């Protein structure tokens, strides 16, 4: 029972962590809560369903399951990246030097817009993920574990390792870190700030799309409002780990997933969201920078 709940929590936490990475990276560079990021995740989930339905109609899924799943992830990622890019270009770039509330309101507006756009074009009813044949549950320590949970955890870990290598080893990753530290200075040493910001949005959107497709597979159905709650939770995870901090977002996501899963099964399922927020408030009061965040001293 406990082990089962821990695995559930890790799978949930992996999804939160993937979304949280998008929040934390954008915040690290633009100091903006990208409220529309949850909507990108929702769009990713919808695209997963739409693409898999398409492949099933064409007949690809029946013959080559793994290939079609791979194409679903890839297609969803490409589309979400395009949405992320457009979002940044339309709603955020014109406001880069505005008062700091302006981009936040713009983000909220975009979030409302995207939710209603999906509702109007796809309807407000639940969208069902096409049935696919899955392998039998694997038994570990006498507990049956769903193949999907293992798949979610493994995929997320692979993506996170990939992100870590990208940020710490590549030239573009270095440019991102420099931009996060000091935008103006980075610009002076020849980094194309606009390009770095665009790349940040693309990476965040790709991770969110992966989370979206996996959640659609896991729960079997999605709706146009799933982005809102997931977005808030993921942002909570990002703050918990220390916003702007990439490993922090991963840690925060897993902690949040575990707290929710364990809290729901051992204390009260109705109040599971309350635990998450109470932990958040507690962390912010005792350690305002988050768990892995630096102790930020105020610049005067």
């Amino acid at each position, binding site marked *: 029972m406990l082990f089962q709940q821990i695995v559930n929590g890790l799978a949930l936490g992996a999804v939160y962590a993937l979304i949280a990475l998008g929040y934390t990276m954008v*915040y690290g560079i633009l*100091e903006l*809560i990208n409220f529309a990021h949850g909507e990108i995740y929702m769009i990713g989930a*919808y*695209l997963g369903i*739409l*693409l898999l339905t398409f492949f099933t109609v064409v007949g690809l899924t029946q013959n080559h399951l793994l290939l079609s799943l791979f194409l679903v992830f890839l297609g969803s990622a490409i*589309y979400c990246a*395009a*949405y992320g890019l*457009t979002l940044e270009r*339309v*709603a955020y770039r*014109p*406001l880069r*030097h*505005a*008062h*700091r*509330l*302006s*981009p*936040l*309101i*713009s983000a*909220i*507006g*975009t*979030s*409302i*817009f*995207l*939710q*209603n*756009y*999906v509702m*109007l*074009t*796809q309807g407000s009813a639940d969208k069902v993920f096409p049935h696919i044949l899955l392998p039998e549950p694997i038994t570990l320590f006498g507990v049956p574990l769903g193949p999907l949970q293992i798949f979610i955890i493994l995929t997320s870990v692979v993506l996170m390792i990939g992100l870590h290598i990208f940020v710490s080893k590549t030239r573009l990753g270095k440019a991102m870190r420099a931009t996060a530290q000091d935008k103006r200075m980075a610009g002076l040493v020849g980094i194309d700030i606009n390009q770095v910001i665009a790349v940040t949005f693309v990476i965040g959107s790709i991770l969110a799309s992966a989370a979206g497709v996996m959640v659609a597979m896991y729960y079997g159905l999605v709706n146009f409002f799933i982005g*809102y709650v997931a977005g*808030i939770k993921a*942002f*909570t995870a990002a*703050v918990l780990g220390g*916003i702007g901090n990439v490993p922090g977002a991963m840690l925060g996501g897993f902690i949040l997933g575990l707290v929710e899963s364990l809290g729901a099964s051992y204390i009260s399922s*109705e*109040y599971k*969201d*309350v635990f998450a*927020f*109470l932990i*958040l*408030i507690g962390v*912010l*009061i005792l350690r*305002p920078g988050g768990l892995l965040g630096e102790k930020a001293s*105020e*610049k*005067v």
Partner: protein
Amino acid sequence: MKTLYYIGIPVWLGLLVQPFMGSEGALALAVVIFLGGLLWWTAIQVSRSVRLPTQIGILLEEAGRLIRTLSGRKPSDRQRRVLTLTITGAVLILPLILNNYIIDVLTLAGIYVVLALGLNIVVGMAGLLDLGYISFYAIGAYSYALLSTRLGVSFWLALPLGGSVAALFGVVLGIITLRLRGDYLAIVTLGFVQIVHLVLNNWDRVTNGPNGILNIGRPALGAFVFSRPIHFYYLILAIVLLTVLAVDRLNRSRIGRAWIAIREDEVAAQATGVDTTRLKILAFALGAIWAGVAGVFFAAKFAFVSPESFTFFESIIVLSMVVLGGMGSVPGVILGALIVVILPEVLREFASYRMLVFGAVLVLMMIFRPQGLIGNPRRRVELQLQDQSQGIRTPMNRERA
């Protein structure tokens, strides 16, 4: 290069929406955007080559003058008096000849005016981004619902009580968030909304869960019971007037100036002797009072409360009123609240599209008119002074520190 945009943008957007709208929808959208762009381009070319006829020019100038007058750029005393009289007359007399539906919409608008003015204290004046403002509204509404159904407390007693309970919670939230700045504050207040919403939904013994509380007592004065829409209209009108008076006084007071100092630069404010701790908590408390009062009225008007009315989304709606109208400006915020409540009612035929439009309007406002419809006059003065002295570093466009 320009030509590339005129073709590239429609194609890009068409491809983006294709999975959601289907090929025909995507094609239609692309064509519409392309034609729109073409029209825009033609309009620019025409306006460059053709001069406007004199009459239209004069008309535009007059309209501009009227807008400047309304937005508070030194109207003459006579203009001011005429404007005040017209508005007062319309607000007092017009409802007598309007139908109940319109009066209900106006009453709702009144509630939101009170909420927006209250939030304006926290966000517009003190500069604390509170996304959880609606919880105080909920606390006020449930206070009256419980006081009325359990203890039979009258509306008039509940009005200050509900306000005080909300203010108390405001103080608590203020103390909790004292050390947090900017976005952290936003996320904690957001968590606060979620917690209040969940408690209302799940604490069945007290709040009756998602079913809400029914049969809340109506306000009464002696034998006269407020029951028809018009009664509630005049009641909320009185509350709105009280709020406007109080907020306007606050804005001009020592406290109001201290809040603005905190908003512009907290460290500098502290250094010049402003007690930032006390004033920030005070901002939360004084903002929450009005949400509590509005909540009590809401419960009395509809005789029913349920958690559904107090979601994070409502918080955003109220915040958008403040931003749309102009942060820190009392007439602006009133206008913002009226627009956000009344416009969707007018556009009822396009009901399913109105939230789509609302989202887009928020984005466009931020890009093209971030100071709101009627900007805060004091802020404008600051802006002009700084423009003259320093050139570019103004409060509105300075780099985020």
